[in-house]
């Protein structure tokens, strides 16, 4: 549960607080636990909600603009800066401990609205529908934010010097 909270919250103290809040919520809501759901799934959702509540209560730091990280196009719709393949595969990059950290750091640089959707969909593996419910937004908004978050993360990772070596 702490590992889940740490993915959403940058400060260790906040992550620990969120887990504590989640335990309290679980204690209070145990009567409402529906036996047909898996306990691990139920608790997972509770800790994610606690982490998101904590995230919303934190003062926002200045965020990078998502627009700056999206691909740019010429008037005719062609790439303004044509993308190229990375020199190394994801598998080979993951063997480097420092690079794993660097990728984590890039995820943390994403604006919270986008980072949260990326974490919920790609990492915590909630469905589009579940993510929309958790964030109280439409499914279409989830899809748009996820795609933009992935595009922005691609740009940030692609700019790492290790990627082009």
């Amino acid at each position, binding site marked *: *549960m702490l590992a889940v909270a740490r*993915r959403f919250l940058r400060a260790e103290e906040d992550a620990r607080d969120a887990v504590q809040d989640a335990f309290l919520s679980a204690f209070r809501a*145990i009567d409402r636990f529906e036996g047909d759901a898996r306990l*691990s799934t139920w608790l997972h959702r509770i800790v994610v909600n606690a982490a998101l509540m904590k995230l919303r209560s934190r003062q926002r730091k200045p965020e990078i603009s998502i627009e700056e990280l999206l691909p740019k196009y010429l008037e005719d719709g062609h790439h303004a800066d044509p993308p190229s393949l990375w020199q190394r595969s994801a598998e080979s990059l993951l063997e480097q401990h420092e690079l794993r950290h660097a990728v984590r750091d890039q995820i943390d640089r994403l604006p919270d609205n986008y980072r949260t959707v990326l974490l919920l969909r790609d990492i915590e593996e909630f469905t589009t529908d579940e993510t929309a419910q958790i964030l109280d937004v439409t499914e279409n908004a989830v899809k748009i934010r996820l*795609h933009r978050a992935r595009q922005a993360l691609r740009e940030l990772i692609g700019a790492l010097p290790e990627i082009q070596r």
Partner: protein
Amino acid sequence: MTCRDLADFLMAYLDDELPADQRASFSAHLDECPPCLAYLKTYEETVKLGKSVCSDPQGPVPDDVPERLIQAILSAREQN
């Protein structure tokens, strides 16, 4: 289809949510546009990297651990 269109609908393409005719023009564009093919591949690599670096090194929480946790919560509640 332009490169911009391709990038806009990339996720729908990968999720197999495009109608057959759009999917065909998407594939045709990829066949003749190396930058878009590179964009698609690096987009996929990005998703893979993100999932991998955020995965819990100790693996997912086993189902029996939450079960024990709930039992502990319930017994603590009975004692109160």
